[in-house]
């Protein structure tokens, strides 16, 4: 039975309960992931991380949240009051809304009602996620503008330009998934992957483009230029404090989890088990699929943290260039290839034609990459026009030192 049919006969109270559960899961995940991120990043930096509040420091993030909420709520005198208050609300609300279409489990029995843990299953579910994301940008832009201050404005501009550009790449990377699954509904895409392979393997280039653009979309390191503290103080939320800041904080983490959940749904088979472990899906009356789903989501979250612990921030122009001149053209070409392959395989169904086409594509890619390498070598070999090399007094390199003058400056060791 399809998810949409299962959801159709849900009584109102189950829908309400599900909405509350989705909300609660997002908030709890945010609190836990803040803790998890701090511990992981600490390990990567040879530190221990928060370990004082609660067992293993587990409720550190909760304590920080309480502290944040009790702080003084400031509205700058130069701010546009109404918009200043609305902005964080837009940001947080839209972040939660994306979760409505994520299928968290397979068919389960929920208070005696056979259903799936998914709030609604609309035929354009993935587009709906893009729509909520694009409204979420308003929160950032308006926060930057309404603060009435220079750094937030610059941060807001950067952030909105970044999110819009990377949303295009993200949208394009989804197209090939639509072509292969023949649907834009999240549950059908999960189902379609079960019938073939995970799209993370079949459509690997799309997966890579999506993974890169989801980091850009959520303003996370190494793409966190909107809050580059060395340049912009705190970016768009510089002037925010107390609960309003907490809302932005919440929105950022819920967004991370939402894009991870979308990646799981579209590319890693959603709530289904790893290939070969399909029997686990029946455990706990089907609820075990929830665990599979969150294992995959947390895997993506770990990647987010890993990136933050590893990579330095990009320069803004290089970042935009990468988005517009690399990701978007590459995904357009990839869509072309996928669409052609799809047409060949659905109409003629002759293997030689398919393999021939794929071979030609691979050859073209290899040719382009060779040409690119050559031109890069040529560019690197250009000698920079320079003035005379300056002559500084510098210490000799270790290899140049032949004698070491050891003289005891008068028995300092006693």
């Amino acid at each position: 039975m399809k998810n949409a049919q299962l959801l159709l006969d849900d009584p109102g109270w189950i829908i309400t309960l599900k909405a509350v559960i989705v909300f609660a899961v997002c908030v709890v995940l945010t609190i836990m992931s803040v803790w998890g991120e701090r511990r992981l990043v600490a390990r990567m930096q040879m530190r221990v991380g928060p370990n004082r509040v609660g067992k293993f420091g587990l409720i550190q993030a909760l304590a920080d949240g309480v502290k944040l909420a009790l702080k003084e709520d400031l509205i700058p005198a130069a701010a546009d009051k109404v918009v200043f208050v609305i902005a964080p609300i837009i940001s947080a609300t839209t972040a939660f809304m994306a979760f409505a279409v994520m299928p968290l489990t397979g068919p389960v029995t929920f208070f005696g009602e056979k259903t799936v843990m998914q709030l609604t299953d609309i035929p354009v579910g993935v587009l709906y996620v893009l729509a909520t994301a694009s409204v979420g940008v308003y929160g950032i832009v308006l926060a930057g503008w309404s603060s009435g201050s220079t750094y937030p404005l610059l941060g807001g501009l950067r952030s909105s330009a970044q999110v819009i550009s990377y949303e295009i790449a993200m949208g394009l990377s989804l197209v090939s998934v639509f072509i292969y699954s023949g649907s834009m509904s999240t549950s059908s895409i999960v189902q379609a992957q079960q019938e073939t392979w995970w799209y993370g393997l079949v459509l690997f280039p799309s997966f890579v483009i999506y993974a890169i653009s989801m980091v850009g979309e959520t303003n996370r390191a190494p793409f966190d230029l909107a809050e580059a503290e060395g340049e912009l103080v705190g970016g768009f939320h510089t002037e925010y404090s107390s609960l309003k800041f907490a809302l932005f904080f919440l929105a950022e983490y819920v967004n991370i989890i939402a894009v991870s959940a979308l990646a799981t749904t579209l590319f890693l088979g959603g709530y289904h088990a790893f290939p070969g472990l399909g029997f686990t899906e029946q455990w706990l009356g089907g609820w075990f699929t929830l665990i599979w789903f969150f294992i995959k989501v947390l895997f993506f979250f770990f990647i987010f943290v890993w990136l933050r612990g590893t990579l330095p921030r990009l320069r803004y122009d290089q970042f935009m260039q990468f988005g517009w001149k690399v990701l978007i053209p590459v995904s357009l070409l990839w869509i072309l290839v996928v669409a052609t392959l799809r047409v060949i395989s659905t109409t003629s169904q002759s293997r030689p034609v398919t393999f021939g086409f794929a071979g030609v594509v691979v050859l073209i890619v290899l040719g382009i990459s060779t040409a690119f390498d050559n031109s890069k070598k040529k560019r690197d070999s250009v000698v920079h026009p320079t003035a005379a090399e300056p002559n500084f007094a510098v210490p000799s390199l270790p290899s140049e030192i032949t004698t070491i003058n050891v003289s005891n400056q008068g028995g300092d060791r006693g």
Partner: protein
Amino acid sequence: MQSLLTIQGPETALFWFLAPLAVLAAIGMLLVKKAVHSALLLAWVMITLAIFYIAQDALFLGIVQVVVYTGAVMMLFLFILMLVGVDSSDSLTETITGLRPIAITAAVGFGGLMVSLLGHATLGREPIGLDIANQSGNVQGLAELLFSKYVWPFEVVSALLITAALGAMVLAHHQRTNPRPTQREQAVNRFRSGSLAGAAGLPGPGVFARHNAVDVPALLPDGTPAPSSISATLKARGDVIDSSQFQLDNVDTTVVEEK
């Protein structure tokens, strides 16, 4: 025909809740003074329309309305409007006298004409109803029409849009007269130009513990202001504060005890 016009239950409630809000927002859009507020109200009207589309089973249209109009077009508007700053508002003084009554008359007349025309309009045939139109799925139905019957207009519109985008780019593009120095070239030049003073970065503005604004030149150890510590733009505008008043000798350091 009649069955199409009757709306029942939740949809009626939704309509009577959102429609007044949409109309209020539309009127407010014309009346508010700040351009950004106008843009926001317009975005709200668009989202309300999208909700109506969704309520009337046009799911794809509703979502695309949000993605394209609210998310992309309106965002670009907002992007430009943001640059005018938070406290600027439109001037409402009439530059040409008598323009306002003419404009109002024309607008009301045009509105009346449109309403009367649309009121008389017919589809020319009986509508078949949403159930039949959405028979094979809303998206599939649209795709079938777009890529068969309307493929020519669809392609023409997309060609038009691409031409417009290219035209905008050509008009906005300008060629640099000399190539921009790369980061590497800048680094090389810093070290190989006449002085090494700026090699490790220029001094920051401000006088320690006295004044940290960007328009106050830093003081060098000998007490003279460092000209390289402030932006050339500020210097050209004449917006530079004399920092000699913050020199230790000139500052009043006598402590006044509070009683």
